[in-house]
């Protein structure tokens, strides 16, 4: 087996039952595994709601570590849509040429640094700094902020290992509080000021709302991007022919990014609360219980994807749900896609080959399912072209 491979632990259950049961802090979760069921349930917010106690739709549940509602993520339509329409233009800025020029310059600098170094630990030396610096563009904050975020480590709510860490959450909240204070006192053209000034249904957003959006922006775009970048590097280390192909056919890079997102599925699942007794996949789902939409499983469903466990780098028909589906599909996807596209471009341009030296896999444990989502650490030797 290749070191960069991510196997599919859900295959058997997906085929036989279509769901899996997992325990989580006395609030069990029924994981929905089939592509069609996942899309249908994601669309059906009336039965499967995101609007509950803050933190409860996340698996593992974050109810014990936060009370701030993440916006628009923890709201249902129509309120969800009202907030989303307000902030969506900001999240589309990565489509602007100026944004992309800055991003590609950042990525080129980061890659130049690892080429100079020769051998690097990809997460700490590359993916985390890259993600943090890129986030300063999305927030339109000074690039020096990135150094602070880098020091926080990979997951903003988790310490080493996967246990939820209330202290880490507090640190993020304190930081965002301070930043909001700063933006109130000295408005600028950053995301905090944009939100504080935004007009929502005839009034300004209040502090708690601004905080809800900012926390989500930090939390949603951190380990997802880091895993996507790290897994991409690992894959390309074992598939130098793919780098060659990007050089010869740069037009496939967009499709390659979608295929990486499908295959890596950096966010395994997201929960919903059942609003009234119903059925999913011919199985009873009780009111006030939790289900989860397992994007990672749906993305390997052989009813939809040919050779689902292979990376087909220019896959043409790829209705993956790696960025979610329907109302809540990922707002950060424009940013994430740009990072990955430009990363592939610069790698093809500058890197000749890479070699995985040693690594330890990051395996999420969901009851009977053990899913590799990335690495705890991975050392790679990089050679210039």
């Amino acid at each position, binding site marked *: 087996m290749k070191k960069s491979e991510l196997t599919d632990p859900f295959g058997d259950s997906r085929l036989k039952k279509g769901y899996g049961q997992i325990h989580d802090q006395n609030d069990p979760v029924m994981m929905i595994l089939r592509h069609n069921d996942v*899309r249908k349930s994601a*669309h059906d917010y009336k039965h499967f709601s995101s609007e509950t106690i803050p933190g409860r739709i996340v698996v593992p549940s974050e109810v014990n570590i936060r009370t701030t509602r993440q916006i628009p993520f923890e709201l249902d339509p129509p309120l969800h849509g009202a907030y989303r329409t307000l902030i969506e233009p900001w999240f589309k800025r990565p489509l602007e040429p100026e944004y992309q020029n800055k991003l590609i310059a950042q990525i080129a600098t980061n890659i130049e640094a690892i080429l100079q170094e020769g051998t690097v630990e990809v997460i700490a030396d590359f993916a985390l700094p890259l993600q943090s610096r890129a986030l300063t563009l999305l927030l339109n904050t000074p690039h020096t902020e990135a150094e602070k975020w880098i020091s926080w480590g990979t997951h903003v709510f988790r310490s080493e290992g996967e246990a939820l860490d209330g202290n880490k959450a507090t640190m993020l909240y304190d930081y965002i509080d301070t930043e909001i204070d700063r933006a109130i006192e000295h408005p600028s053209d950053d995301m905090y000021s944009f939100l504080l000034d935004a007009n929502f249904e005839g009034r300004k957003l209040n502090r708690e709302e601004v905080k809800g959006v900012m926390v989500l922006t930090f939390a949603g775009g951190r380990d997802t991007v880091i895993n996507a970048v790290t897994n991409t590097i690992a894959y390309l280390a074992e598939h130098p022919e793919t780098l060659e192909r990007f050089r010869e056919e740069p037009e496939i890079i*967009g499709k390659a990014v979608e295929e990486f997102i499908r295959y890596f599925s950096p966010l395994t699942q997201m929960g919903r609360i059942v609003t009234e007794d119903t059925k999913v996949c011919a199985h009873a789902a009780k009111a006030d219980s939790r289900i989860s939409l397992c994007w990672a499983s749906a993305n390997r469903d052989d009813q939809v994807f040919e050779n689902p466990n292979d990376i087909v780098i220019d896959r*043409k028909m*790829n*209705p993956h749900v790696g960025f979610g589906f329907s109302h809540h599909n990922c707002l950060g996807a424009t940013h994430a896609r740009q990072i990955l596209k430009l990363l592939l471009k610069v790698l093809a341009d500058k890197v000749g080959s890479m070699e995985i030296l040693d690594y330890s896999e990051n395996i999420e444990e969901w009851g009977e399912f053990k899913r590799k989502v990335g690495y705890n650490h991975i050392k790679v030797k990089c050679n210039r072209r």
Partner: protein
Amino acid sequence: MAKITFITQENERIILDADSGSVMELAVANNVDGIDGDCGGVCSCGTCHVHVYPEDMPKIGRAGKFEKDTLEFDDNANEYSRLSCQIPISEALDGIEFKVAN
């Protein structure tokens, strides 16, 4: 070369010439409002939804299985719906008009 017209939700008419790529790519390259093409044309995002005039349907053809499955979740979808990333541009499209669905 094919002349292709997009009619946006605001009833703006945008007339474009093209000879290759997909209808979505043409729209995105020319900033047609309502066609975002987020996934780059792999039938995942549904942000390239257009309506075809009934009389043009034989020329364009109906949505394929996976395309239909994606469209099914769009409230504005009907039997004349297509994901424009799945429509390749060719001479045969010359003079056609698409209504942007969203």
